[in-house]
Structures are given as C-alpha cells and as structure tokens.
C-alpha cells in the first residue's frame, strides 16, 4: 500500500514537472556569463520555466545554425548574427516575432537593427546588440607627428593627409604606417569597402537585387580612395594578411597609427596600455557611413515550444536585459542612455550610428562577396586599376547570379 502511494506520488510529481517547459537556447561563448544571469532571473520570475543553454563559438555557430535550421532540428531560441537572419526568414525557417517586437515597443528600437529581421512587413528577430565601426587612433603617435591628439581627422582628405604625416620611414624601410585595413579576411575586408562605397554615393545593387551596380564612378572612386593609400605607401601591404583581430595587433604594436573597428576593441586596447582616441569615420563631406551589424534572438519556425520561446525572447528583449547581454551597444534607445554606455571612448560610435547602412543579405552573398574581395585585393596590389577591378567584379558577380 505504502509502495503504491509513493508510486502515485511519483506519477503526480512527474506529471507536474512535465508541465513546466524547458526551452533550449544556443548562444556564443562570449555571451555566456550575462546570459546565465539573465536566465536565472527569468527562471525566478517565471517558476516552472526552464532555459537550457548550449554554447556555440564564432568558428562553429554559422554552420551549426545553418544545418540545424535547414534540417528542422535546432533549439527553440538562437543567438545569430543580424546580417544572417533575413536569409533564413526568406526561406520560412523562422517564427514570426512581430508580436514580441510590438510588445517591446517598435519605436524604441534603432531602425537599422529592426530592419535586419524585417521581411514583408513582419519581424523575425529581436535584436539585442547593434554596432558599427569608428576610427581608432594612437594619441602618442599623433603627438609625435605634430598632430593634435584630441582631434582625429574629420574628412577623408584629412585622413589621407594625416596618414602621410604618420608614416615613418627609416633607412628605406617603413617602420610605422598611417593606417591599415583587414584585407586578409573576406568578410572583414568587404565590410570595410562597403562604407566607402556608400559614402561616395554608390550602391551595391539595383532596387530588387537582380543587378550589381559596381561599375559606377562612385564605386570606382571608393576603391580608388582605398587603393591610393597603398599606392602612396601610407598603408602596408601586410593589410592583405590580417583580419580585424590581426589589425588590432598591428595597432597595439604601434605599426599603424589609425584603423577602423567596432566598439569592442576599446577594452583590449586600454588593457594593453595604449593611449587611444576614438572618432567617427571621416567621410568625403564630414562624417562618413558605417555598415552596422549585431546579434539578434531568433526562434525557429519548427520549434514546438513557440509560446515559451516567445515569452523568453520578450524577456531578453527588455532594455535592461539587452544592455546586460550586449557586448557593445543595445539597439534600444532607452538602454543606450544607460550609464554603462556613457564612456567618452564610446561616444563617437553612438554618434556614428546616425549614418549607417546594413550589411547585404543576398542569398548568395558568401559566393558573391568573394569575387568582390578578389578584385579589391587585385586593385590594392596594383594588379588592376580600380576601374578594371570594379568592371571585373561587376561582370563576374552579375555572371554568378
């Protein structure tokens, strides 16, 4: 009898525990700490709900999410790069999160962030991190070159002039360059060319993304601007060997005086003890353009726990939780005013968010950007003129569509 009772109790307990829903959340390793704290708060606020965290890494997340979504076997909530989400949404692989976005307040989101998940008037992601590039410069090297360490270049013409002054040559070898670019990495390299393109008034495609428009004077002018820095010897050829991380190492070792990067570089540079300044990107007429990217939460369309997933995403999407989770900035206007984003180093990045373009989300972008990348490199190496390079890129990219 007693045994029967315990058995009955166990059955009952079992039944209640299955009522509580456990959802799984894939997130990258650098977000793990704040994510666990947010989950703990969520579980306290919603007794019975459980969130199981699975850690991905930068090197594995793209293919894991891709294969998982396509094979209808992915967790209920995923942290994914903003510029990749629209490609999934178009294929109908993501759940519609318009309700969540509306509940959080559409107007509180930076528009370019929301746009990364918007397809046919519906929202398929809730962004929590959103940032663009800014200019980093070494104040000591500025002072040594007779430049005002508190005034970074404001226009592209000034940037070119500063670069010349900041390039130091000893016995025929250059020991310090004005600037360098991450042209050893396809994504990073193209991400630095596109802002120049937009600043020059160029466009990547026509309206419906069926034709590239890279053989225009604007596109050629943008490439010329970059290639000329190499031609005049103020940017090192080793640019073609580095990605964003490698570029920062060149800066930390005083091989270059300036470079473009996102707000996440502030911390490591300060830790290395460099006197660093930040500024907005110099453009043809005042502030230039930056491309923006970031991270969003998405819910797979096949998830059987949509309700629970949406409830959790709505929790993480609150301004205060965005601010905890983001490694740079939150896309919420409310959260951007928080104390933690008030550091003077970060201000130019926030100002720069006023002139942005999103990253392309063409379905064949990986294949296409590789062609653009090859031709940018060819122009920088002097193997092609900028006009040739852009004509080739345009023809080859259109040929691959």
């Amino acid at each position, binding site marked *: 009898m007693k045994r029967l009772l315990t058995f009955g109790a166990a059955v009952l307990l079992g039944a209640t525990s299955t009522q509580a829903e456990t959802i799984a959340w*894939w997130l*990258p*390793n*650098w977000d793990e700490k704040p994510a666990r704290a947010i989950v703990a708060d969520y579980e306290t606020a919603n007794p019975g709900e459980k969130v199981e965290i*699975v*850690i991905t*890494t*930068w*090197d*594995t997340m793209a*293919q*894991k999410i891709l*294969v*998982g979504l*396509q*094979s209808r*076997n992915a967790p209920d909530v995923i942290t994914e790069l903003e510029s990749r989400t629209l490609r999934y949404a178009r294929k109908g692989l993501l759940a519609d999160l318009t309700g969540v976005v509306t509940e959080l307040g559409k107007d509180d989101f930076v528009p370019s962030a929301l746009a990364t998940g918007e397809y046919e008037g519906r929202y398929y992601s809730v962004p929590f991190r959103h940032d663009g590039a800014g200019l980093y410069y070494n104040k000591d090297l500025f002072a040594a070159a007779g430049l005002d360490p508190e005034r970074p270049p404001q226009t592209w013409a000034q940037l070119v002039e500063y670069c010349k002054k900041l390039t130091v040559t000893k016995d025929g070898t250059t020991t310090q360059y004005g600037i360098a670019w991450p042209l050893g990495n396809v994504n990073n390299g193209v991400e630095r060319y596109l802002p120049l393109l937009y600043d020059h008034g160029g466009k990547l495609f026509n309206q419906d993304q069926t034709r590239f428009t890279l053989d225009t004077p604007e596109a050629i002018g943008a490439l010329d601007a970059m290639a000329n820095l190499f031609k005049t010897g103020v940017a090192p050829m080793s640019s073609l060997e580095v990605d*964003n*991380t490698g570029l920062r*190492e060149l800066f*930390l*070792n005083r*091989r270059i005086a300036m470079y473009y990067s*996102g707000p*996440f*570089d502030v911390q*490591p540079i300060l830790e*290395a003890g460099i006197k660093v300044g930040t500024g907005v990107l110099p453009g043809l007429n005042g502030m230039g353009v930056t491309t923006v990217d970031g991270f969003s939460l998405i819910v797979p369309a096949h998830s059987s726990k949509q309700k629970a997933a949406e409830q959790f995403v709505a929790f993480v999407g609150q301004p205060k939780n965005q601010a905890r989770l983001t*490694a740079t900035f939150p896309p919420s206007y409310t959260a951007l005013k928080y104390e933690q984003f008030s550091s003077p180093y970060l201000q130019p990045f926030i100002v720069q968010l006023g002139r942005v373009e999103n990253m392309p989300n063409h379905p064949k972008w990986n294949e296409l950007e590789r062609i653009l990348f090859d031709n940018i490199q060819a122009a920088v190496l002097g193997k092609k003129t900028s006009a040739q390079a852009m004509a080739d890129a345009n023809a080859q990219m259109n040929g691959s569509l």
Partner: protein
Amino acid sequence: MQKSNARTLSIVIAYVVLIALLFFALAPVALMIGTAFKPNVEIFQVPPRWLPRAPTLSNFHKVLFNSGIGRYALNSVIIATLMTFTALVLGTMAGYGFSRFKFRGNRALSLFMLLGQLIPLIALIVPFFQIFDAVGLLDTKIGIALAHLTTALPLVTWMSASYFSTIPVELDEAAIIDGCTRMQALRKVVLPVALPGIISIALFAFLMSWNEFVLASVLTNTDSSKTLPIGLSEFATMFTVDWGSTMAAAFLMTVPVVAVFLLFQKQFVSGLSAGAVKG
C-alpha cells in the same frame, strides 16, 4: 676499408638530412610551444622571439582549470579509441581479404569502399546530420565515432592491404600447412610481421578522429560529446582570440599522442627486417 668509408659517408648524409628535416618540422612547433609560455603582450612583438622574455604558466592554468578541456579530452579519447579499434579490426581483416584472395568483384568492391574518404568533408555535413537526427545519434559520442569511421575505415583497409601485399604469401601458407586456419594465420603470423605498418595505420586513424573539426563542429552540441578541436575554438570569441591559451591547449593535445607513439618504438622495429621470421 672502402666499404666502411661508404658506410660513414652514408651515416653523415643521413644525419644531415635528418637534422634539416628536424629544423623544418620543429621550428613551427617550437614557436607554438614558445607562444604557449608567453604573456599576451609578447606574442606579436617586433622583432619576433622564439622564447618568452617573462615566461608564464597562466595560459596552461587557464586551459587546465578554466575551460572544459578536461571533459573534451575524455570525449576525444573515447571517440578516437573506439573508432580506431573498430576500424583496425574491420580494416585489417578486409585488407587481408583483398590482398590474399582473388574473387569476382574485387576491384568494384575496393573502389566502392574508398568512396567514404573521397567525398569532401563539407559535403558530408548535411547528410550525416540528417541520418544522425533520424536515428537519435546527434550530439553523441557514438555518432561522432561513426562519422569518423566513415572516413577512416576505407583507408585503414587499403593501407593494411598494401602492407600485407609486401609480406610474402609463403608465410601464410607455411602457417596453414602447420594447421592454422586463415584467421589464425592472419593473427599469429601476418599481423606481427606487419606490426610497424599497423602501428602507423592505427596512428593515422586515431589522428583522423583526434584532429577532426568540420564534422564535429556540427554534430556536437554539449559537453557530453564535444571534442578537443571544438574546445580549441572556444578560446576565441568574435573579436578576440586568446592565442596563448590556444597554443597551450594545442600543445597539451599533442603531447600524449607523441608519448604513446614513443612507447611503441620497440614494436616499430619488428617484422622481417628484424629477422623475426627469417630462415
């Protein structure tokens, strides 16, 4: 007299060749080990240095105590050992069969067997994911081991077949006349003679699993199946890479394999040349 001169010369040449090869092989490894002991600020110093100025153990400390590497190492050992053992048993038997018997379909079967190794790994990601999803092997050690077996088994078979073909058939025949079955002849006579080859093949299969990244990156999710190469990628985030810890972990991944191989050196010099079966 002349003969011993020639002997000395050949030894000198051999040493020169070996020392040159050692430099080539070990210079990058030395840089790797040096980096593992360097504090972060020293890694990209100009001019570069082999050895750290201020050696530190903090990278190793971080790898050993602040990462999941212990768990991943256990997974990797289980997966690689399980896979290697299976591949060796199935592969040496099949290899023996292919090298000792003439039968119809020999060529077709051989070619077919190689398929698993010939397809680019990236193309295998999706099909493997689908199968393992269907049978519930995603994120399991067995799943990864099976995926690795697919690429290793064909080559283990073919490499053992090629070693067996260098061993005179007379050896098996003598054993069979002495009353052995074919299987006993393989186990008691052929395998011992081919031992150096088998060790090399085992190492080959083991490393194929131990260092494999592409398949494991998609087929594993949690600590219950993540392997060491996945662990290695966890020292990087989107915008920072902990180079020192990455190199320390890579060093720690390398040492046990070399140590085990070093232990097997006695067995490496057996076989016919050692005179084991001669006469």
